[in-house]
């Protein structure tokens, strides 16, 4: 019987304690913000959309190899010795044409593993987080500044150069060695 009234008492008492707490919170200022109107201040290490400073990219493919989800694809073609490919901001000489450098943000897991191996620190994460798209294909970003046509041209150039070099080598080899051996080399 005592337990009976104790139950009633404890129920009522704890309900009132709870109600007191919630009532107090009616007058506590809200912790939420009005998102699109007010934006949160992001810390300086924020890890959101990747950005590639393409001027500095030397096409070393380290980021693509570090990526656990294979969202980065880098295609390169060697530059001709006669061409000037420019320098990175740190003064490194480039040797490769980066014909395409795409990041598929639909796959990207924002793990930052690609950022650390980069020798020229040209790939880094920015604090832009609003980049949703209606089409999945729009999430594939191409950072290369070469147009497809230019890229084709570079590829063709290098292929031609290779071919010429091979031909030259073959010719040299043919000139230096007896014909019997030359045919074997081919």
């Amino acid at each position: 019987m005592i337990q009976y009234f104790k139950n009633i008492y404890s129920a009522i008492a704890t309900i009132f304690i709870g109600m007191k707490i919630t009532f107090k919170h009616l007058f506590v200022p809200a912790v939420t913000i009005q998102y699109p109107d007010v934006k949160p201040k992001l810390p300086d290490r924020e890890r959101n959309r990747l950005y590639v400073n393409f001027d500095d990219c030397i096409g070393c493919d380290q980021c693509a190899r570090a990526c656990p989800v294979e969202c980065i694809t880098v295609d390169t073609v060697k530059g001709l010795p006669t061409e000037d490919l420019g320098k990175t901001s740190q003064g490194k000489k480039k040797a490769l044409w980066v014909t395409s450098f795409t990041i598929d943000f639909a796959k990207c897991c924002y793990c930052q593993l690609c950022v650390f191996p980069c020798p020229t620190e040209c790939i880094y994460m920015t604090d832009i987080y609003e980049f949703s798209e209606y089409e999945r294909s729009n999430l594939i970003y191409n950072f290369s500044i070469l147009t497809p046509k230019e890229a084709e041209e570079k590829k063709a150039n290098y292929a031609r150069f290779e071919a010429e070099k091979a031909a030259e080598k073959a010719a040299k080899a043919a000139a230096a060695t007896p014909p019997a051996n030359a045919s074997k080399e081919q």
Partner: protein
Amino acid sequence: MTYDFFSKLFGSDLIAALIQSLLPLFIFILPYALFAVWWERKVSAHMQDRLGPMRVGWHGALQTIADILKLFQKEDIVASSIDKPLFNIAPVLMFVGTYAAFAAIPFSSVFIGSNLDLGVFFIVAVSGFSVAAILMAGWASDNKYSLIGAMRSAAQIISYEIPTILVIITIVMVTGTLNLTTLSEMQTGHFWNWMILGGPGSSLSKFLLIPSMILGFGIIYISTLAEVNRTPFDIPEAESELVAGYHTEYSGMKFAMFFLAEYANMLAVSSVVAALFFGGYQSPCGYLGNLIGLKWLIPIEQIFWFTAKGLFFVFVQMWLRWTLPRLRVDQLMNTCWKYLIPLAFVNLIIIGLITLI
């Protein structure tokens, strides 16, 4: 009174009756429901350190209207295996039960849908419609969650009607009337004439009644809370267990009907509690209209006080909802049969003895 006015205006009893019956819906229940939904969201938000709706109108005041518009546009999804007629009737019946209860609620001394001598009894009776509606909805949905919700709900509402009625009986014993207008009129003057403080007069029995009345108020408030399926007694629609209980399968306007009925129900029971224990439409501290001699101001003031009291109890319901967890179905029955009903009986006997003095 308004009925007479309209019947004179149109010269037809039928039109007058129609207008009379539609008036509370359009001038009171719909605006109230719109307000209450917004208010609940605001109350819950601020209790949880949030802001709640902020975009539509001032502090999101028009949010509910936007929601209603959205619900109007929604596709009415009807599963293939449901029992169509019952499925369609249920939300309507649910609303009818709630709406009919408003007929006997006195908003002020001049504005009451129907001044029934059996007012309280009528309200208790018609609110029983909702049980049928919930059972229909649960059964017709052909969904196990709905069915379980409906069974729980039927058991719950029927059980909790007993303590409600027992408490109403105590009031009837003291006042000798079931007419809510008469009840309200008895509690006129100042707040010490309210039933919660023993009713009018200053005899010894008034003071003896006070503890019993407070107990009675507690019991009726808890059990009406259970009757309208609010937390901590919202197990018929317990969203973490039964998804949405009996209205799982409803969408669009039919869902809105249930929703509207829930909020209207909250006000209905709050109003009944206010009318029984807190003087109904009576002001706690005299009328401004009396003071400055404008008699026509009094009914308006009365409506104000009535609404204020009703909304206060609705607020308490919301407050409880955002504070408490939910009971389990057997505990719910325990609360009713082991605690509320015995206490209500004891209360009934004590009040009976006091009234004999």
